[in-house]
């Protein structure tokens, strides 16, 4: 019965794999919750800053901030790419990278240079193979991304933009729609698209301490940081959701495999028994 022993071994190994995938699935399921809570917690800040910027944009400023001015000629574009640190999350990262590659090719055909800022180890692994510039990188955000981890990278691109080394800035991340759906999203960060808010009904302005220019700059930087931070949180929630789904289907596949193997095993066992019986019967008949 050497054949059936092999099958038993295979069943055992698939069962062990199933244990791992099940455990990962449950871990991710609980982490989605936490990631979603963090997303919720970071919303008030972004909302308030957006309001203030809306006011500022309507207040009479002496000159528009460079972040809000559309440049006539686009020579270089930047992408902040937010991906996961770990794998085993289905096609989450690859779907996004594929979209990005399409965009990059579009720019390169127009003769536009592409620079990336990468967040997450998977993005680093992927983009180091490509012939695109990487101006900054961040890894190991962990389960609780902190805004400090992102500040450095953001400063690099914002400085590039200020000094006209970049004419446009995009951010790409996985938008968390719900547990089953995550959408690879590419949004434009800079120049800031004009706000859709209606003009204020009556004229009023803030008292600025110190000057309105300096404050607007600070608010815009903080706003962009919060946008990037939120994208990182969304991506984290998407990562866990995608991993949960991927691991669930892996567990299901393992179940199917085990069922099939059990069937094969039983057949082999029965065939062996039948053979033994017929041998005995044959032997008895011969005597």
């Amino acid at each position, binding site marked *: 019965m050497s054949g059936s022993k092999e099958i038993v071994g295979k069943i055992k190994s698939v069962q062990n794999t199933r244990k791992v995938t099940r455990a990962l699935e449950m871990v991710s399921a609980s982490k989605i919750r936490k990631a979603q809570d*963090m997303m919720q*917690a*970071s919303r*008030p*800040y*972004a909302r*308030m*800053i957006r309001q*203030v910027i809306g006011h*500022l944009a309507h207040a009479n400023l002496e000159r528009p901030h460079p972040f809000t001015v559309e440049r006539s000629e686009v020579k270089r574009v930047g992408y902040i790419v937010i991906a996961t640190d770990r794998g085993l999350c289905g096609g989450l990262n*690859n779907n996004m*990278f*594929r979209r990005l*590659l*399409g965009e990059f*090719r579009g720019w390169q055909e127009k003769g536009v240079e592409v620079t990336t*800022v*990468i967040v997450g180890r998977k993005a*680093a692994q*992927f*983009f*180091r*193979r*490509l012939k695109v510039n*990487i*101006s*900054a*990188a*961040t*890894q190991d955000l962990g389960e609780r991304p*902190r*805004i*400090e981890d992102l*500040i*450095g*990278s953001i*400063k*690099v691109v914002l*400085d590039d933009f200020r000094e006209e080394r970049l004419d446009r800035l995009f951010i790409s991340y996985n938008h968390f729609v719900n547990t089953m759906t995550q959408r690879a999203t590419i949004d434009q960060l800079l120049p800031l698209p004009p706000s859709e808010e209606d003009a204020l009904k009556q004229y*009023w*302005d*803030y*008292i*600025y*301490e*110190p000057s*309105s220019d300096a*404050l607007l700059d*600070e*608010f815009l930087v*903080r706003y962009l*940081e*919060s946008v990037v*931070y939120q994208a990182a949180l969304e991506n984290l929630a998407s990562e866990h959701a995608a991993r949960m789904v991927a691991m669930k289907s892996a567990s299901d596949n393992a179940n199917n495999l085990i069922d099939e193997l059990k069937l094969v095993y039983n057949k082999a066992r029965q065939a062996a028994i039948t053979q033994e019986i017929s041998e005995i019967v044959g032997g008895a008949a011969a005597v």
Partner: protein
Amino acid sequence: MASTIHCDIVSAEAEIFSGVAAMVIVPGEEGDLGIAPRHAPLLTRLRPGQVRVILPDGEEEFYYISGGLLEIQPHVVSVLSDTAQRAGDLDEAAALKAKEEAERAISDRSAGMEVAQAQAQLAQAMAQLAALERFRKQIKR
């Protein structure tokens, strides 16, 4: 109820305080500010320090912030606090670190370049295939 002002203290990572207050005292960049209801609209930067919220019943609550921004409207005070210590040179250091990280990512490039190129080409081919697939579906329609 004319003598209260709504106060929100938020950071990028969490909501810290939200509620009504009789007065809010914050460390403004150009001096401490005591904000009573119906304060004129004002925007300013904050120094690291303590935010004191005096509740309508006279009790006080203290929050430590490491800098941030402040918006005042007649009935709303918003403290947008930084969670991290922020200063020009600190930001610069963080930026340098990010750049170093990028250089490290690039320097690993030389290793396994052929595999990498092949993989990149594969990814591009996959993208093209996907585009073709979409195209084909459109034709069928």
